[in-house]
């Protein structure tokens, strides 16, 4: 049996959600689906429109562009978090390196949730703004370094 509480703790690893109160994340946890892929299955294809975000629960996956390996991801790591907020084409493919179990959040369900809980949307906007500010600071630092 999958505990909602554990799903919430998994969500805390997603950078968009890390600063959100757990009570709010409970609503996100409710719309999380569960999926399993056998070793070798390519479950995300480069160029497809992204509609879901995945959190690896168990097993290992690889992010690749054709034969070129970009990264290996393990439990707790995230694939495609921005897909939740905007429909963008996948920039790389993702395949299972072993039998994997993932949590999955569909964009459509996530937008329904934001409609029902606008407070959650406000919190996410705030997180994104903080990120922009941090990036701007980073750019400033880099520029001054040059």
């Amino acid at each position: 049996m999958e505990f909602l509480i554990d799903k919430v703790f998994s969500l805390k690893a997603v950078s968009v959600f890390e600063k959100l109160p757990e009570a709010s994340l409970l609503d996100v946890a409710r719309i999380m689906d569960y999926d399993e892929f056998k070793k070798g299955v390519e479950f995300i294809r480069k160029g497809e429109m992204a509609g879901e975000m995945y959190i690896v629960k168990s097993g290992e996956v690889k992010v690749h562009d054709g034969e070129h390996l970009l990264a290996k991801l393990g439990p707790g790591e995230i694939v495609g978090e921005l897909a939740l907020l905007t429909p963008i084409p996948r920039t790389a493919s993702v395949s299972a390196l072993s039998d994997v179990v993932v949590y999955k959040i569909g964009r459509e369900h996530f937008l329904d949730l934001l409609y029902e809980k606008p407070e959650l949307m406000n919190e996410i906007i705030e997180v994104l703004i903080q990120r922009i500010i941090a990036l701007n600071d980073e750019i400033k630092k880099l520029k001054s370094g040059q």
Partner: protein
Amino acid sequence: MTYSGVLRFFQIKGAEVPTFLNMLGHSFFNALAIAFSFTAINVLLVEMNGIENLPYIYLLGGFLMLITGRIYSSLESSLPPQRLFTLVLLFCMGWAIVARSADLVQNTLLFVSFLYALYLVIYQLSNLEFWGVASLLYDVRQSKRLFGMLTTGESVAKILGYMATPLIVTWFSVYDLFLCAAVAFLISLFFFYRLARLNKEGLKVAHHHDEDHEKKSGSWLSVFRISDPFLRITGLFALLAVLVYYFVHYTFLNRVEVHFREAEELAYFFGLFFSFGTFLNLANRLLVFNRLFKMLRIGNMILILPAFLAAFTLAGLVGMVFIEDPLYYMLWVFGLIMLFDEILRSSLHLPSFFVLFQPLSKHKRLEGHTLAKGRMEPLGMLMAGGVMLALIWFGVFTIQSIIVCLAVAVILWILIGVKVSGMYGELVRFMLKNRLLTSRNLDFSKEELGAIGGEVSASTDPVNLLYRLKVMGPSLPDQERKDMLVRLLSDENPLILKEALALAGEFRDERMVPYARELAAHENLEVSSKAVFLLCSFLEDDAVEELEEDIRQSTGERKEQLVAAVLKYSGIVGATTYGSALMGKARSGTIEDRITAARVIGLVGLRDYYHPLAKLLRDSDREVRRAAIAATATVKNEKLIPILFEIVISGDLFREASRAIASFGKEAIPHLVMELKKSYDNRIHQRLLKIAGHIHLPGSLRMLVSELLATDPGTRSVAISGIYYSGESISGAEVRDKVDHLLDLESRYFDVLVAQLLYSLAEDDDRLRRSLLSELDLQRDRVLKIAGLWYGRKLIQRVSDNLRSADRNLAVNAIELLENRLVRRDAARVIPVVEFSLETLYDWKKSHHNYKKDQGIEALFPNGCVCASEWLIALMVRIYRERDIELPRDIIPRLEEIESEAVMAELNAKN
């Protein structure tokens, strides 16, 4: 002429007839009552030689107006409008009944003087009542169509009332005029009740107000603290207008007193004089002033009355000096001054004066109106009384000295008027140059278009042209408008083209047909779509033939647009040519065809497409249903609403369906009320309530208010958010009680949550500690929103922004803001929650000696309520399980009652 022809002629829509007729009856009898009261009180005062009491009457009247204005403002925010307006009408009626018994009072003159001062208040209140009712019942567009008729009805009532007074006084007595007034007020009340029955939603809901409203009801001394120079000068201008009016009023009544003694004589004189004045007023309003408004600029319009009065006052002064026996001459001069003052003031001066505020922001406009209408009237009256008392004090209180005062006031009025006019011109020029005006609220006269518009449009920048067309379009000369449209329609930027096409449609300029034809083939689909619709709207039946080839050759979205435009504008010809094909697609077995049908129906946007759309809304395919839901927003047939509710309840596509329902506005409310009465689970109930939050009408707001104390915290939260995000603050005793109750609840929860932080479980478990802190964060937002229901969103937004800022001074400022604006009891419940942080934990501990150190899960259920999120409760259950702490027996049933999946999962795992 048929019934519908009559309605068309008067620009009344069928559904508006009952409300309009009752409103007409209400305003008609109100005006009749005022006409009777006004004549009667003037006749009595003059007959008793009471004109010398007028300075005291002005002083008392001004003072009473200040008091009643204040009471009215506070009642406005605590009583539902229906009760407030009933009270006003009863007060007016009571005054008339008391006035009827004036002949029984011993010192009648003193009593009549008092009644006169009260009449000035009654007049103000009845105006407030009428405009209050009108503003609640009609929106801006309806006002423009219907107010002309309502005020004409009012003028007719006054003419009849004034003309009837001599007859009533001859057959009965002056005192019986008051009885007639009381009866007229009673009939007016009767019509008001019928109005209230017809418009339950509009008149029964508690009055909504925002921060501006608080300013409106603030101290009248605030007139001395106006920071905006334009408002300051217009305020002074308004004050002088009132002062001049009372000087004219005094001199006129003084002259009348010299000439007429008998009540009957006076009744004849006043009756005929004012009915003639009202008649002239009405005729001029209909025939002359509208044209003047179109010709002259507002800055000059406001100078007409002062200039007119200056000329007549000068004539009065000349007569006073050079004519040997000026009695008759003076009566004529001041009679004419009074007459034209009445006419020009109500139909020319005041309307153009209030236009002065239109370029200002909503907040400043309200401030300007309140200043001119609410504050300057009593202040001017007090000042007039004060000046006259001063003259009495110095022993120079004669008609001559009053005329001199009048002359000085009029000269000052003109000087200030010239300044106002100049500042207004600068203001409009600035607003236009900086594109700060965003609506067409301003009607520009020819003079203004020449002086200001020319300067602004000197630039050839298409954005400037577009702006000028948008804001000044209806006032522009035909040829100039055409030239501008042609220039814009030849632009390359699709955004400009789209806007220009929309404007060409709005101005119905047929000369744009060739341009629309050309743009119909534009590569940008949005541009071509607008052009095709515009073209078809001009071509009507001929569009079928003209676009036939295009439709045959086109595909996809382009084809959908062309067919939809023809179906929309080509009437029966379009329907016979493409209607059956559309129906065929709607019934087709192919999903794509059905989606196309739904989209075309949406583009056509005609109510008649109910049947196919209803079928598509129940389609087995999700994407077809999605396209059909989108189409309901333009088809707007209320018969579709129940199907949309079915979708909301089913869950799939509920977001789209909820938005579609909310777009129906008022029509959706009865359906929503019905659905909310059904017993759905909390999640669906909240979903329905959320739709109410998106409608933003008094009726939907009432639904949210009624759920503020729902037992389910989620439902409460939806209701609070719905009201909060609607931007309305609510008032009324019932709502105050609910806000009180919610704040009490939150205050108790706050103590429980903080006590948990000090409990050993939280001290040992970082997850719990973090969760409690984030729970307190969430509570801070919730408490602020609850306060926002009463104190307005603006204040709370400011507080929240300051609290979020990294600047500590701003956070301190936020707390100060709350301390200053919240009443003490509310501040005591809100501020501790808002300023809570780990640093303040020690302070809390000191002030709560009795808090139990043995907190734990049972403390989350104080007095049978649940005071924590299901997350916190679930986490506590898990921690108990992990640490092998046994859950108290009586807590388990309570945990089960929460019906939370998360809690139940933890509970079952333990068991």
